[in-house]
C-alpha cells in the first residue's frame, strides 16, 4: 500500500518546528536528546520530584 500523504498536513497542523524535528528523530536519537536535557536539568539544580498532578489517582500521596 502506498504512503499516506499526511506529512505535509501534519506539518501544517502541528506548526511547531521543534516538535516536527522531534518527530523526525529515531528512538535512539530521541533518547540521546532526552539525556542531554537531564544534564541541563541537573546543571540548574532541578528537582527529580514528580510534578504535582491533581488529575492523577496518585495525587492522594501529595508528592
Amino acid at each position, binding site marked *: *500500500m502506498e504512503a499516506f500523504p*499526511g506529512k505535509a*498536513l*501534519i506539518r501544517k497542523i502541528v506548526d511547531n518546528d521543534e516538535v516536527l524535528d522531534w*518527530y523526525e528523530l529515531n528512538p535512539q536519537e530521541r533518547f540521546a536528546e532526552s539525556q542531554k536535557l537531564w544534564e541541563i536539568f541537573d546543571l540548574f539544580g532541578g528537582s527529580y520530584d514528580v510534578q504535582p498532578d491533581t488529575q492523577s489517582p496518585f495525587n*492522594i*500521596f501529595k508528592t
Partner: protein
Amino acid sequence: MSSPIHRVLSTFLKHKVRALLMGGQACILYGGAEFSRNIDFAVMVSDEGLNSLKSALAELEAENIFVPPLSQEALMKGHACHFRCKGEGMRDLRIDVMGVMRAVSPFPELWERRVEIELPEIGGVPVMALADLVQAKKTQRDKDWHMLRQLIESDMYKSSNELSREKILFWFAECRTPELLVNLAAKYPALAGVALEKRPLLESAISGNAEETARLLKSEEDMEKELDWRHWQGLKAELEKWRHEKKHGMCNGVI
C-alpha cells in the same frame, strides 16, 4: 556520569527483570515530546518476576514509598508500587511499577508484542508496543490525551512508504487529530468502512466533517476519562485505608 534513567535501564537488564518500559520514557522513544522525571514499568507478576525486580531495586537502593508495599496481590489488583532510588547519583529518581492496567492486555500478551529498542551503552530495552502504550495512556489525565495525539501523529509522520493494512486500521482506531482522520478516510475509504464498525465517530470523518469529528473525539475522550476515574475509585479507597494504617503504625506490610 550516566543519567539515573540510563542506570535504571541498565540495572533492569542486568538483573533480567521481566519488565516493559512504558509511561513518559517510552513515549519519548515513540515520538512524544515530553520531559519525564520518573520511569514507569509494566512488570510480570510472578515469584520469579518479582524476585528479579527486587534484586534490581536493591542494587539501585530503591526504597518503597507511599503504599502499597510491593506484592503480587497489590499489583494484580491494579495498584502501582512506587520507589525512590537512593543510590549515589540517582537523585531520588522515582520508579513506578504496575502489573495490571485498565483496558490493557495481560502482561504475557504485552511481553509477546514488546518492541526491543537498542540503546547505546545500555542494550536492547524491552518497550511496550505502541498500540499497548496507547491503551495504557487512556487515563483521566488531560496530559495523557495530549500525548496520545502526539504519539499517533509522530507514528504517521515517520511512516514508511510501505504501509500495512494493520497500520492503517491502527491509525483509524487511535488517531486523535480530526483533520488527519478526514484525510485518512478520503485516502482509504474501504478501510475506513472496516474501522467504522469499532469506532462510530469515523462516520463524520468519512463524510469529511472535521468539526464534527473533533466534537466526537472529545466525547470519546471524556467517556474514557470517566471510565478510568471510576476504575480508580475502589483502588483509591483501598490506598486511603492503607495510608491511614501506615500512618498509625497498623500496616504490617501484608496486604
